[in-house]
């Protein structure tokens, strides 16, 4: 069908990471140089971000990839016969056969990069709506059971079982209930939420509709950070199309479900990713963290029972309903079931999205997939799980990506971000930054976080300057304990994690004599 009527189909991603390195200019250049009828599809990214802009050409044998393509390469590529899939140094072969991609288990990201993100026809042709249709043929209780049995845990960081949360909202008595999607994705090193929203927004919409059916909710909000203008625009367009097709609104797919969905934009505050802060923000207030209990499932948005889930959590739901809980639960290790969408970033040679079952080791992600550093220097430290996550040395590369195994190693999987640093990194500087970030982004409600983080910066400065080192190391340790124990939320509570892990694994950077753990 690609060449039907002599029209060649070419894919150039519209993903903002691809656009950030020239995808728009490449698409324009292909249009200008082709010299034959073209259909240019602006797809999501396949997640091989070091190869962006990645151009794919539809051929009788499948989609052939070329990358990374610079705008100035296009003339030569077209002349070499790229539009017929011909050879060239930038030719990568069939996209599906690129081992980096082929060796993954794409579940949540199955359609990302494959389809035109805003085409309802593409969505349905690639299995979209199968999950929602099945959910609507089941009772809400049965849907909750399905999610519980799949073992799906929250992908936003805390790993709370989604089924239990949904059941709580389901059983709460209220005329009005909400489903809120946490798309604040503030963690440095994470971009999977963004890529799903830009690359396959209907999946999120479908997941939210299923959650609404299961929980008995009639209204939903997607809270997207303002740093993601492309995701916001894509979601808004997709929601409007979904209404046009009867996937949202009154009597969804002619069922008993009525569900209205809105996009709300954050205000550039990291703390608004914390769920109660997000709810305050959605209510039009300052994002001050609420004390729990009450839990949002019982008293959430405007005091009503509310499902709050991350983009990837809700984005995994359609596949679970479509393929059944067992298919998902069969993947993974221990109590970490299914796949996780890992994100490789920072100083890494082959950065991007690696969706694979839980249990893969950290070393496999960084070395086998990531190919080590982009700078070519040795890897020294890896921060997993965002700015509140631990810094780990290469000696911990044997750790399996699993919530419990990471917790046992005083680390966390979090939202699945893996940020690599080479041997030029100064770990005392990274520890200082963790405190600085907490001081800047604290909501200000509790003293250990608000004041402790400011003190933390000062103490680290003194340690590094060699002032009363021994005493100040003790002060820092006590301060970390105080923050861990006395903070209302994980902002203050987990900031000690990057600090203490940097101290434990890279003490030499803080001016002490021995450096273990390297």
């Amino acid at each position: 069908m690609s060449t039907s009527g002599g029209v060649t189909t070419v894919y150039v991603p519209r993903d903002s990471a691809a656009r950030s390195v020239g995808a728009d200019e490449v698409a324009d250049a292909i249009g200008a140089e082709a010299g034959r009828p073209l259909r240019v599809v602006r797809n999501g990214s396949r997640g091989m971000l070091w190869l962006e802009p990645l151009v794919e050409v539809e051929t009788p044998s499948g989609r052939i990839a070329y990358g990374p393509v610079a705008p100035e390469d296009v003339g030569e590529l077209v002349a070499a016969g790229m539009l017929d899939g011909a050879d060239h140094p930038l030719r990568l072969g069939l996209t599906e056969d690129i081992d980096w991609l082929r060796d993954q288990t794409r579940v949540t990201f199955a359609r990302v990069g494959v389809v035109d993100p805003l085409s309802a026809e593409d969505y349905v042709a690639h299995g979209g709506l199968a999950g929602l249709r099945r959910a609507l043929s089941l009772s809400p209780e049965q849907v909750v059971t399905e999610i519980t049995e799949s073992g799906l845990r929250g992908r936003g960081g805390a790993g709370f079982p989604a089924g239990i949360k949904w059941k709580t909202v389901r059983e709460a008595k209220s005329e009005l209930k909400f489903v809120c999607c946490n798309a604040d994705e503030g963690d440095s090193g994470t971009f999977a939420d963004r890529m799903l929203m830009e690359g396959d927004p209907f999946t999120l919409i479908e997941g939210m509709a299923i959650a609404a059916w299961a929980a008995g909710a009639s209204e939903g909000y997607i809270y997207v950070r303002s740093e993601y203008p492309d995701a916001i625009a894509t979601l808004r367009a997709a929601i409007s199309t979904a209404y046009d097709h009867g996937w949202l609104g009154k009597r969804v797919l002619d069922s008993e479900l009525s569900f209205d969905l809105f996009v709300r934009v954050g205000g550039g505050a990291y703390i608004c990713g914390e769920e109660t802060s997000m709810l305050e923000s959605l209510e039009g207030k300052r994002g001050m963290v609420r004390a729990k209990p009450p839990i949002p499932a019982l008293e959430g948005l405007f005091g009503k029972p509310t499902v709050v889930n991350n983009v990837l959590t809700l984005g995994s739901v359609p596949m679970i309903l479509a393929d059944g809980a067992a298919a998902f639960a069969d993947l993974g290790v221990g109590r970490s079931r299914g796949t996780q969408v890992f994100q490789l970033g920072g100083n890494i040679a082959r950065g991007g999205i690696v969706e694979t079952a839980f249990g893969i080791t950290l070393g496999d992600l960084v070395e086998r997939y990531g190919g080590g550093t982009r700078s070519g220097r040795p890897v020294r430290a890896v921060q997993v799980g965002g700015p509140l996550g631990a810094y780990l040395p290469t000696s911990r590369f044997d750790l399996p990506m699993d919530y419990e195994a990471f917790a046992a190693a005083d680390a966390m999987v979090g939202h699945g971000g893996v940020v690599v640093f080479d041997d030029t990194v100064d770990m005392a500087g990274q520890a200082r930054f963790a405190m600085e970030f907490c001081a800047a982004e604290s909501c200000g409600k509790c003293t250990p976080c608000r004041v402790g983080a400011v003190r933390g910066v000062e103490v680290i400065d003194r340690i590094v300057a060699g002032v009363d080192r021994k005493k100040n190391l003790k002060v820092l340790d006590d301060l970390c304990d105080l923050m861990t124990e006395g903070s209302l939320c994980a902002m203050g509570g987990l900031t000690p994690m990057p600090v203490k892990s940097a101290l434990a694994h890279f003490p030499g950077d803080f001016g002490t004599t021995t450096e273990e753990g390297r």
Partner: protein
Amino acid sequence: MTSLPTQSLEDRVRSIVASHRDDRGALLPILHAVMEEMGHVDPAAIPILADELNLSRADVYGVITFYHDFRQTPPGRRTVRICRAEACQAVGAAELADRATSRLGIGFGETTADGAVTLEQVFCLGNCATGPSVQVDGRLYGRVSPERLDSIIEVSA
């Protein structure tokens, strides 16, 4: 940006509020709309918003100051935001930040004297595998070398 006559500001703010009448907890969408239309939230808008939304002025002020996005003074003609979070730190964000401040002769949060550029810091733009990252008026740039930054700033100035 020249300041607008008070009457006009009031009308504009009231009509923005009117278009968000049906939104629950509408203050953030309204503030974003004000920012989009006027580039900043003029302090003179605070009593109008308070009146329209049945809030105290302190409530409105508190919300505006809580969020980094809402500014009370007009920005430069272009806003350049440099990512200073960890994944970009790992690939040279610090050098980029130094380059930007020295080229523009201003610090983060400041605007050049000619009103051309406002420089801001941001913590992660979701472009962490293709950093260091910079955003100019909502447009994202990746793998930004110091030289590329110069040309981005120049084009945008």
